[in-house]
């Protein structure tokens, strides 16, 4: 029987993280744009975890993981080690301290032992406790680059996926709270409508395509067309993103912690795009603008929610020129410039 219900005080700990958070007073030691390779668990970036086409070499922006981005000797023993307050780790793990403590795993399923439909059905039938605040925890083992995994789950549980997944993971999910300790391929969280998905590694192209709600957090970098055709929800990328981010998106929020490629933004949409780094180019019809105070507060709350460390004032917003002009016109009524 592959389904192994576990008591709350299960003796089986998850695979411990190699670089667990610890107290430290220092800040980041690497540039923001560089996803630290040693911030990921040992199983997060397996060279053979994904099929050849799951995360192709062009899936990430060319500067997402530059070999020469790390300081000389950064990977050596003498290199400054990442401190535990690095937002990639703190953000990912702050909600649950299961990387250092024994998690209270309620159920455990293996992707190697169950067919996809069986796995989905097993998750859907996980009983819910009476306390709505405490979602049942489900550990998913055996993730090894499978495509189209864990789709269309509409059940309020917490999933932890150990390993990397292929393309179209978690498509059309709702309510489920998911953490992935690995990479994902193209089209992660397509059509997601609620819940949250946090990916500790990188994502391929089209992350968050057509999502209508919920939160997708990628703590590595993401490829081209991230947030394409979004109609709602929040998408956070801690690292860099590729070209055409927000292509065809209508609404929602996209937060980019690193740099962006070409054609950032959409002049005909209502998407709130915030970026901390630089964009190679903006789509014609959009421009950069500083955040207003209200947006700083909103973004600050979003950053806290996503566990992304940083000050909202570090970000600029990418906004349609027409929308900015309309904002300024409306603002003139409140703050007349003749004063």
């Amino acid at each position, binding site marked *: 029987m592959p389904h192994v219900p576990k008591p709350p005080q299960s003796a089986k700990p998850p695979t411990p993280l190699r670089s667990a958070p610890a107290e430290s007073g220092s800040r980041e030691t690497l540039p923001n744009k560089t996803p630290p390779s040693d911030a990921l668990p040992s199983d997060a970036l397996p060279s053979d975890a994904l099929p050849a086409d799951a995360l192709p070499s062009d899936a990430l922006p060319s500067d997402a993981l530059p070999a020469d981005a790390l300081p000389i000797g950064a990977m050596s023993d003498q290199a400054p080690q990442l401190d535990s307050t690095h937002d990639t780790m703190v953000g990912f793990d702050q909600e649950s301290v299961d990387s250092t403590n024994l998690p209270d795993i309620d159920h455990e399923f293996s992707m190697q032992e169950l067919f996809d439909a069986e796995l989905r059905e097993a998750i859907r039938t996980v009983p819910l406790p009476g306390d709505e605040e405490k979602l049942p925890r489900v550990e998913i083992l055996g993730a090894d680059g499978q495509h189209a995994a864990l789709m269309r789950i509409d059940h309020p549980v917490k999933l932890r996926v150990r390993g990397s997944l292929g393309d179209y993971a978690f498509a059309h999910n709702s309510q489920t709270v998911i953490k992935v300790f690995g990479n994902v391929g193209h089209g992660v969280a397509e059509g997601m409508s609620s819940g949250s998905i946090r990916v500790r590694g990188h994502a391929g192209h089209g992350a968050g395509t057509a999502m209508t709600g919920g939160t997708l957090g990628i703590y590595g970098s993401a490829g081209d*067309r991230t947030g394409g055709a979004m109609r709602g929800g929040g998408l956070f990328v801690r690292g860099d993103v590729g070209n055409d981010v927000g292509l065809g998106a209508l609404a929602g929020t996209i937060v980019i912690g690193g740099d962006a490629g070409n054609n950032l933004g959409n002049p*005909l949409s209502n998407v709130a795009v915030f970026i901390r780094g630089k964009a190679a180019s903006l789509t014609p019809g959009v421009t950069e603008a500083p955040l207003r105070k209200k947006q700083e507060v909103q973004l600050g709350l979003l950053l806290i929610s996503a566990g992304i460390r940083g000050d909202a004032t570090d970000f600029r917003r990418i906004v349609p020129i027409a929308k900015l002009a309309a904002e300024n016109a409306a603002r003139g009524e409140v703050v007349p410039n003749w004063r």
Partner: protein
Amino acid sequence: MYPAAQTISRPDGSSTRLELPLFWYEPPWIQMPRDVAGRLAASVANLDVVVSALRRDIAIDEEPSELFAAIPTDESASTDAAQRQFLPRMTPYRAERYGFTPADFDETRIIDVRLAATRDDSGRFAYSPDQMSRWEGGADGSTIGGGGHVATGSFPTDVVSLKQARTKLDQLRLLAPSAAVFVSIDCYRLEEEVAAALVSQPDGLIVRMNQPEIEGIQLAALVTKTRRLMDEHEFANKPLWIVPGEVSPRDVAKLIALGASAVAIDAWCLPLVRFLLESMPTSRFDRTAFNQIPAVASQHLWDDIDRVIGLLSAIMPHGSTPQRLGTYHSRWAKACGASLLVP
């Protein structure tokens, strides 16, 4: 049993059965109120014509249309979920997925992955504000994205290449376990488009040949050529669905004899839409015309459908084109490979 019933196989061994080789590819749902659209869709599907619609095209989320509901059975029959029957429906899977909900996967017979941008009635490669409001507007009718035209996507944002699209089609097969997954393309640059589309290993191919500049002889030649290209790419046994412009029942039978597996009858349904729009009373309390939609649809369409069934019953099932078709015109014989008859 209809002579033209077909069974479409999926790679996982399951199959989808369709009773008629007819489908309504691009209904103008936005021209009608939701309730009228939903009733019309169900009425046409009830004639065993596969109808293309998203759930939000023809109903609100809370009250799905008859097209999406199980066919009512008498109480004495078994109510086992596996035994429930649904009307034949195909789901357009556009590049941007505006208006798409996960419920659109349920019980659909065909997933139509549209790999080419389409024009709206105004000629734009865009969706109208009304269309966007129906798909993505809130319950209060509010707009999303500013309320203007929204450009159509030219390619799915989460598909990297046509080779990688195979993974996308596999994903759709998992999400819609009862459906065959088709890819639809335009007929321009046919050789390149067919070769590219078949790389993704769809369960069938839909080719849009409804451009007004395409004449009958060109249509016949395009169908013949498409089937030949599919044969060359070892897709001889896969269905080829054609979206033509104006066609008669005889044309439908000829297209099937030339190698098409199903033919769109949008040209037959549009007059029906116009008739309904003209005959619908302005009063929302007068439901007479609404209740008569099934009868009106049957009256408009059944004679033509029955003629197609009759003509197809006379076509040699496994014959070659020269065995099936003959012509007195050398141009036609050359264009589509029919036998040249001597008058």
